[in-house]
């Protein structure tokens, strides 16, 4: 890689992201390119800018400290039309409320979620688990050792967040 210019290295990263399909942690990119993580992160941010500036069809998204090649939202409807996919199902209000409580209050038990919503949330939690948007993150040290739930990286990705810090702030009255 010594004789590569920056454009080449960017092309290489694009290639790796393409082959991987999944998100690649910046640490792995840094190790591979034999540079420190900070420099690699800067390089990735530059690559993201380049993709946007050159109006590429694809984009690179960051989730936590990983990067992934993805389509742009504005092409979504055409993708659906071309491949005849089903309309993406949006989450029901009950499920979304449950998800937002988990997102802001994690780790949280089912009982605490139900206290906030004032209704049973078992179904909503099952839906979120099946969709991979939440996961068990541990057990509470309490009778029955209830499950603690938290959000996944897929949750971040699905809502266009790079980390939990980017959650829209809660409005305090």
């Amino acid at each position, binding site marked *: 890689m010594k004789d590569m210019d920056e454009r080449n290295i960017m092309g290489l990263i694009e290639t790796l992201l*393409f*082959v*991987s*399909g*999944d998100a690649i942690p910046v640490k792995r990119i840094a190790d591979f390119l034999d540079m420190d993580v900070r420099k690699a992160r800067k390089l990735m941010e530059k690559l993201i800018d380049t993709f946007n500036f050159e109006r590429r069809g694809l984009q690179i*998204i960051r989730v936590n400290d990983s990067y*992934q*090649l*993805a*389509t742009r*939202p*504005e*092409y*979504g*409807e055409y*993708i659906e039309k071309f491949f005849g996919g089903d309309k*993406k199902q*949006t*989450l029901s*209000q*009950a499920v*979304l*409320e449950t*998800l*937002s*409580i988990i*997102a*802001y209050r994690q780790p949280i038990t089912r*009982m605490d979620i*139900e*206290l*906030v*919503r*004032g*209704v*049973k949330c*078992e*179904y909503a939690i*099952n839906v979120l*688990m*099946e*969709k*991979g948007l939440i996961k*068990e993150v541990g057990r509470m040290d309490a*009778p*029955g050792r*209830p*499950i603690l739930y938290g959000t996944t990286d*897929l949750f971040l*990705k*699905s*809502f*266009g*967040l790079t980390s939990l810090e980017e*959650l*829209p702030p*809660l*409005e*305090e*009255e």
Partner: protein
Amino acid sequence: MDYHVKLDMFEGPLDLLLHLISKAKIKIEDISITEITEQYLDYLDKMKEFDVEIASEFLVMAATLLYIKSRSLLPKQKYEEQEESDPEQDLIRRLAEYKKYKEASEKLRKRENIYSNIYYKLPEELVDEKEKNTSTLIEGDVNDLLLAFLKIMAQRDVQKSERRIYPITRRSISVSQRIQQIKIILSKTSQCSFFQLLEDNCHRSDVVVTFLAVLEMLKDNQIRIYQQGQFEDIVIRGA
């Protein structure tokens, strides 16, 4: 009041209360419990007229509202000595708390609408180059085929990744099988809890079957159950 709004529009009693408060154009902290209680009960009555089944949570809230209202009729000192927390303040706090997350979920909805339009691609399959030219493989053992399939299916359950929808064949267990299992558990330990009976992230049908099994056993006097309060765990003991 506008009764054309359907009860199932509301995500629970708190949601309905927020709706009533917003209609009255008052702040949560300024609500008059007496007034809101009347509207709330009115609402439930109308629902009954329309033959809408009312979830128990709505009834529990009705009871809470009536309790708060009745308390306000008593001279103040009497109850203040007995109770540490003021149920009216508790309710106001809960409403404010719920409202925060409800609003946050509206913001998440907007994000969802944008970002659900993003697609990814599957990883490329990388196979060992050296093997490419050799014409090995296919031992011709049909069991290898089965094993390979089962392995893939098992992995698939773990992956559960985005926007990949699979037909999932679900193992189902009967109520009588479940009763047998619970009997075995109770023969080993004197008591167990309902939550313990449910595996981590078990399916809804498992919960239902387990619950039916417990009810069945209770009816047949095979067990006794104890629960501390609503939504609390249920302790099951052999009779």
